[in-house]
């Protein structure tokens, strides 16, 4: 014991230097998720002075009987699957286009420009898109230009269109950061690979499929896994653009959690949604890691 304290004292500078981080992280980053799992099994609400009791799986059972919660999963898939696909493919195509340019200067200019929409705060672009979707907004104006009989659609107020509106936001979905990460990957490919392909008379498309895709599979895997993890938790658009509406048309599990917590003060139930999403994320991450390793080893054969 004495030797232990002597060791600590001898290395006190080092321990003092890591202490703020370790203590802060333990309290503010490790305690909340652990306590969150505990809360999911209690009936904690915003009511003051109420005794908090353990209720077992009641929150989970209630959630799985709750039509709002069940439907929110379908809505999430409708929003996140197209987003994931577009988020992986469009930047790749854009990066390939930039890479195909002969002039290095124009490549640099496009690389710079493509980041501009990312730089502006996300809230600003959501708010501008909200104006575009108004009944007298830009989107209806453009449709009207093509056909004067086009009906004015209330994009955000019509349950049939609101998912489309959320998806269409940011069209054509060139994520600047993703483009840059892809481009960096493509530019790292050794030049002699292309020379060999040129000698074999490969076309541009063949070169992309045979040489580029396998060598940037790391980036694709990164976007896929992080797209899944972030997509499952995402409800930022709903908070600003639709508040889950019209009705419950844009409720996703994350937004329901936010509502239960922020509006209804149902902390136990909100935590239960958090736990469910966490489990799904764990399973999906594990599966996608496994699946993608398998895909890679096949490529090597």
């Amino acid at each position, binding site marked *: 014991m004495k030797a232990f304290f002597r060791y600590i004292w001898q290395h006190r500078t080092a321990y003092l230097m890591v202490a703020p981080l370790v203590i802060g992280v333990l309290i503010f980053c490790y305690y909340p998720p652990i306590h969150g799992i505990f809360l999911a099994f209690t009936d904690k609400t915003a009511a003051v002075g109420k005794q908090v009791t353990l209720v077992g799986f009641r929150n989970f059972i209630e959630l799985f009987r709750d039509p709002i919660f069940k439907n929110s999963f379908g809505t999430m898939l409708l929003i996140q699957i197209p987003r994931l696909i577009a988020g992986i493919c469009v930047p790749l195509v854009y990066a390939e286009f930039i890479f195909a340019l002969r002039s290095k200067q124009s490549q640099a200019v496009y690389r710079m420009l493509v980041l501009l929409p990312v730089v502006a705060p996300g809230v*600003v672009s959501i708010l501008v898109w909200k104006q575009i979707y108004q009944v007298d907004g830009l989107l209806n104006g453009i449709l009207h230009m093509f056909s004067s009989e086009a009906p004015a659609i209330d994009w955000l107020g019509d349950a049939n269109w609101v998912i489309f509106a959320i998806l269409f936001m940011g069209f054509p979905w060139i994520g600047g950061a993703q483009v840059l990460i892809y481009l960096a990957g493509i530019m790292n490919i050794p030049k002699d690979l292309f020379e060999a392909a040129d000698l074999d008379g490969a076309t541009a498309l063949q070169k992309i499929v045979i040489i580029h895709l396998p060598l940037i599979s790391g980036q694709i895997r990164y976007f896929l896994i992080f797209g899944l993890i972030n997509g499952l938790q995402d409800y930022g658009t709903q908070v600003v653009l639709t508040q889950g509406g019209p009705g419950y048309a844009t409720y996703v599990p994350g937004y329901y959690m936010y509502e239960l917590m922020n509006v209804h003060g149902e902390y136990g139930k909100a935590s239960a949604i958090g736990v469910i999403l966490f489990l799904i994320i764990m399973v999906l991450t594990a599966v996608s890691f496994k699946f993608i390793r398998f895909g890679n080893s096949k490529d090597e054969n």
Partner: protein
Amino acid sequence: MKTNESRRWTARRKVSQAILHIVLIFSLILVLYPLLMMVFGAFKSGTEYNSNKWLPALPLRLSNLSDAFESIRIYLFNTLIVALFGIVGMIVISSMSSFAISKLKFKGNKVCFYLVLALTMVPGVLSLTSQFLLYRNFGMQDSLMALIVPMWTGGCVFGVFLLCSFYAGLPDELFEAASLDGAGDFIKYWKIALPLSKPILATLVIMQISGVWGDYIWPRLILSQENYTIAAGLAFSFELVSTTAQPIKFAGYLISAIPVVLLFIFFNRFYVEGLASSGLKL
């Protein structure tokens, strides 16, 4: 015959390059147009906007900017306070601990590193509710500390990740000379390691600023209106005032975007590095 062939070849290449440019520029215009529309709209009068919503128009109504600034000044101020205190703390805490973890030999340094790294596996949805309750119990509800403390803790994770590998790569001889001169561990960190890591710190600062600037869910949950930072202030307060004309709202969006856009233009290199290094995690 041969020259003819190669001439046709270059002509074809020129055409395909031109098509590439057209496609690239057109899709960029589509992506950038909402932002342009905001800039156009920010300088219109209310009546001008009602008749012409989407195209630029003269005269420029500069008073929109000052009107909007009046309304969002408080949010900008809050954002600056949070960014300043949050980032200074984040830089000191993450660089100091990273130096200790990677250069000072003590029992438990690996544990500290993995303790921090493992946090990237914990999704935000799992902790949101109890995080809210925790900050409330600490009396930070409705205080800007509720935004600053997360930067000092969870906000350090990525910094520790980058800085540990940077410090570990520094040669030990660099510090041995200082030891001979009698410098303690803290002096070695402060005088040698910290200045060397300036480029990484700049990248971290830029990433944190754009994080603070864009965050709205957490401020909305934990703060009341007058303490909102800029993104929450725009979305949940400024935007909802029905008497404010739309052009003035656009002017507000514009003002709030200008600082981060300037940051991007002047510190482009660090910005790009931040994006690239966040993609290197896998």
